[in-house]
């Protein structure tokens, strides 16, 4: 045995410990590095517009006036639509797979969901533009206008005004929902599967129906995992770029109608990076990226805080 081998075996524990610290530390370093780098490369825009960037809806490359508000608005609205559709559907799908479906059905549908998650986002984007958007324009949007439009539902009907063009905020939200659905339902399925059978049995043993066991015990038991799954989907939806860029319409506009074209932070970045000739333009785009990073960061923090609070109040198991 060489001296090196000897040294290695003698100090293996210490070396291994430092190795793990190094690996874990890298994560923190990358995180800090990103913040610093983005902030540095956005310094011109930060200096010029300050925090007012966040609520200014100007976006005029000719006058070098930039504001993030329309992009932030579009990001939030498209994500909200996506979450409002994907979360309830995922809960139902996951419950079906775990509680109700025949094991074979559960396996087949489960694999299909995992495959859905593996489809690259560019495919969703192209499909969205060439297949889904025409369907939206010809069928879904006119239908919504007829049933929920301004004449039928005052106020809320404003969401469905305007020309049914197929692309726009609503289509982007729906495509996003489709994209995050497999992620959320796959994680939720695992969460529900982890609820100990004996806990469910004792709920059934009290004379509960499947529905009662599900919403009073299983859902509560897995609440932390469920919230985790939701935030995983939320994080994806906030940052999703390709598919959204294809169908959102890419206009710096804030409109009450979901049929109108809009943009999101990610889609703005994807579209305009190549055009950013002026330094202030480029710095504004990077500033926009920094805003997205900070947004996701705080959302994750909020999620963790929420889960910790729930754990304290319910003593949930997961």
């Amino acid at each position: 045995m060489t001296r090196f081998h000897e040294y290695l075996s003698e100090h293996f524990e210490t070396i291994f410990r430092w190795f793990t610290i190094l690996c874990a530390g890298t994560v923190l370093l990358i995180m800090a590095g990103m913040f610093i780098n983005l902030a540095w490369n956005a310094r011109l825009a930060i200096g010029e517009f300050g925090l007012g960037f966040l609520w200014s809806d100007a976006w005029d490359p000719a006058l070098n006036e930039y504001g993030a508000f329309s992009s932030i608005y579009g990001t939030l609205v498209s994500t909200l639509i996506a979450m409002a559709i994907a979360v309830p559907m995922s809960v139902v799908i996951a419950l079906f797979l775990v509680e109700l479906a025949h094991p074979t059905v559960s396996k087949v549908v489960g694999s299909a969901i995992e495959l859905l998650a593996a489809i690259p986002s560019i495919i969703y984007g192209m499909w969205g533009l060439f297949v889904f958007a025409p369907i939206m324009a010809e069928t879904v949007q006119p239908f919504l206008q007829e049933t929920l439009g301004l004449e039928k539902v005052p106020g809320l009907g404003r969401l469905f005004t305007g020309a049914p063009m197929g692309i726009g905020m609503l289509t982007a939200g729906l495509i996003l929902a489709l994209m995050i659905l497999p992620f959320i339902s796959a994680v939720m399925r695992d969460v529900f599967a982890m609820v100990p059978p004996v806990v469910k049995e004792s709920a059934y043993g009290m004379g509960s129906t499947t529905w009662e066991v599900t919403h009073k015990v299983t859902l509560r038991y897995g609440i932390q995992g469920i919230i985790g799954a939701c935030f995983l989907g939320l994080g994806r939806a906030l940052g999703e770029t390709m598919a959204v860029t294809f169908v959102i319409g890419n206009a710096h506009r804030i409109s009450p109608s979901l049929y109108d074209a809009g943009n999101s932070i990610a889609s703005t970045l994807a579209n305009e990076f190549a055009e950013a000739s002026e330094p202030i333009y480029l710095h504004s785009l990077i500033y926009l990226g920094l805003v997205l990073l900070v947004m996701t960061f705080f959302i994750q923090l909020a999620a963790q805080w929420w889960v910790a609070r729930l754990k304290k109040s319910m003593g949930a198991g997961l």
Partner: protein
Amino acid sequence: MSDVKLPLYGEMADPTPKISVRGLDFFYGDHQALFSNDIDIAPNRVTAVIGPSGCGKSTHLRVYNRIFELYREQRVKGAVLLNGENIFAPTVKLLDLRRRVGMIFQKPTPFPMSVFENVAYGIRLHYAVSKSELDGRVEEALKGAALWEEVRDLLNRPGTALSGGQQQRLCIARAIAVEPEVLLMDEPTSAIDPIATAKIEELVEGLKGKYTIVIVTHNMQQAARISDFTAFFFKGYIIEFGATKQIFTNPHNKKTEEYITGRFG
């Protein structure tokens, strides 16, 4: 009274059994786990079910509230009469059967909610009660499970924050809150410490005035201490059933004797 009409436990208890099992076979898919089990459960008595691991004790117990039906590959043949009515008859409402036949499991299974909500859970399922009546019933159930004094100030704490023994008594409180007739206990003390076990044994003694109790246990001292009747299971058959005293002092069957004297199991 003629011999034919006498329940299987003889003359030592009420002549009308709470539960009568006749010719019960049980299958996990193709594997048969119980073979023509016959037994009578005396009302307001404790019946212990003993036997080596894997002999079908829990399987047998899980027929009484039809909880096995949650698993599609499990099925039974034979009859189980509760108050003379076959629990598999189409007229029997499954959810009501499970209210009438409560179950306590090996590990405490508090639901992920507060102590109060745990006990209120079943009451809300089966009865429409006012808030004040609910409070009263929860208190009563917790007193019935000898837990009230310990948790009266912790009602809003999560059920999982209690100690193991307290959690198990919480589960008993939850079960008795819906006014069952029978309590099935599947090795209820195997996951908790000796002092908490003693408390639960004491509780079982007290509960049998109101409820009929069937307890599966691998602890023979426990069976001897708390039960009135004992059934000895072996490889899916009920080898011997009779008064606990007789089973433990003068077993008729060689296998029973070997088991209770600790020669196997």
